[in-house]
């Protein structure tokens, strides 16, 4: 009997270790003195120093951060308002709009890329930050929308009714009751959007301009042409940032009343 319970756990353990192996190797080699990443020549921080001297790379990093902040903010506003609005006004078109607005995370990324590329050139929008922002906002909205919707569905409606009965205006009840209750979902959706935007390669390749580079695009080009140990350092730093953001989003998104496994699954 003991063997039966142990075998599955060994399987889970082995797969998890293999899962982490590539990431751990990248981190390990970022501290490697040697230029050749398969030889270990001792601990060094020189690749980090070199990383911070690379102007083009830092500019790409800056672009990525600005883009991620703006698109997650835009997604938070549009997604939250839409989600809240749909619980108040039951329009016949709501279902359709909800379906279309979540398409960007359902269809293969490459299709979204070509769809945006062709459309932006149709309306002759110059490729660059603006086009990146629109595209990123489009695939960030679903995350906020779905999370907020789940949260609203689990909300106790009598709270709002009580506030309204006690004389609070609709707007006031929203500010004082609904917003604080759905805030964790908004924050967790935003962090997720931020992480997704920071990570995107496929869609960005198609909608970026000649002079605009984001970090993932820069990494992609380097991976194709030839990797310098600087990449290890950069990847390690990005790993730390995304890791912290992810943990933060789980903790913020946690529903004290539990029961919302959907949120945790993200």
């Amino acid at each position: 009997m003991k063997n039966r319970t142990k075998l599955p756990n060994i399987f889970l353990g082995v797969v998890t270790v293999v899962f982490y192996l590539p990431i751990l190797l990248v981190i390990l080699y970022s501290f490697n003195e040697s230029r050749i990443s398969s030889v270990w020549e001792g601990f060094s921080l020189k690749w980090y120093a070199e990383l911070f001297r690379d102007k083009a790379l830092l500019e790409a990093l800056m672009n990525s951060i600005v883009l991620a902040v703006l698109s997650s903010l835009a997604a938070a506003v549009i997604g939250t308002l839409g989600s809240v609005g749909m619980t108040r006004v039951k329009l016949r078109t709501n279902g359709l709009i909800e379906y279309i607005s979540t398409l960007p995370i359902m269809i293969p990324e490459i299709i979204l890329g070509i769809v945006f590329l062709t459309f932006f050139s149709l309306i002759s929008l110059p490729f660059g930050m603006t086009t990146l922002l629109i595209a990123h906002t489009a695939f960030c909205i679903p995350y906020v929308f779905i999370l907020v919707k789940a949260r609203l569905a689990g909300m106790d409606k009598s709270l709002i009714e009580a506030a309204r009965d006690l004389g609070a205006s609709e707007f006031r009840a929203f500010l004082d009751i609904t917003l604080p209750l759905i805030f964790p979902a908004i924050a967790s959706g935003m962090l997720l959007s931020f992480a997704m935007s920071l990570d995107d390669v496929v869609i960005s390749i198609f909608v970026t301009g000649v002079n605009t580079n984001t970090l993932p695009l820069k990494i992609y080009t380097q991976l194709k042409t030839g990797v310098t140990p600087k990449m290890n350092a950069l990847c390690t730093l990005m790993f730390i940032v995304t890791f912290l953001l992810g943990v933060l989003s789980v903790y913020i998104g946690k529903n004290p009343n539990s029961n919302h496994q959907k949120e945790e699954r993200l």
Partner: protein
Amino acid sequence: MNEIVPRNVKHKDNRRLGISVLSLLPLYIFTLLFVAGPLVYMFILSFMQRAEVWGVVNEFTLKNYAGIAEPIYLKTFLESFKLAIISTLSIILIGYPFGYFMAKLSAVWRKRMMLLLMIPFWISSLIRLYGWIIIFRANGVLDKVLMGIGITDAPLKLLYTYPAVVVGMVYSLLPFMIFSVYASAEKLDWSIIEAARDLGATRWKAFLTITLKLTLPGLLSGVVLTFIPSMGLFFIADIMGGNKVVLVGNVIQEQLMKAHNWPFAAALSVVLMILTSLMILLYRKITHVKDLEGLV
């Protein structure tokens, strides 16, 4: 008095409705303008003709779709399908037991495993693939280890081979399968299986007739979530396979960025989208579940 009160209420209701409608506006406008619009345009574009030098001509044609049937592109579709099938099968072999066993863990460990799985999911897929490059490249970590313990005596040079692409796909898409299967298995009523076992069903029979059947929505949802992307993830084929593996995604990218044949790229995308929708429809038909299990 009696007449004024209802009118007042009505007035207030209208205003309230006005504010709520206003809050819907950004989502409606953005969705119609930047999601629905571009999608419709791509569909129209796929029936247009490519201009001689640059851009498109507004003339209806079915040439683009006919072009897909040409041997080279048909071969690419078949190659993509083959890779998608191999990747998906490998993902099922690892992901299904993983999700299933995970659901059997204690609540604390389930949470921990969930977090452990989600962390790599948040990290840039490029960075994770880069780790595999370190492992696979000639004289890389794998070669060093294998030669060190004497299994091989020359570098395997696994990078830029077909298996490397499969590993890249499996590694990138495995979490989708695990999450989907887990979502299904977590809801499983284990007492049903116990009952079956008590009534004399063998372990294997109980699994086939009960467990597998009840977790089928999760398994199929995982298939949809891994099969489709694996045809479009051109950068995995690029980075792990060099130029040796060409997927539908690579062709779309090439037609778009290098050949500048947008209508053809659009037609390829429409076909890929139709295949995606068909798979989702099929999934709904089989499982009678509307949303993909464990998607969000």
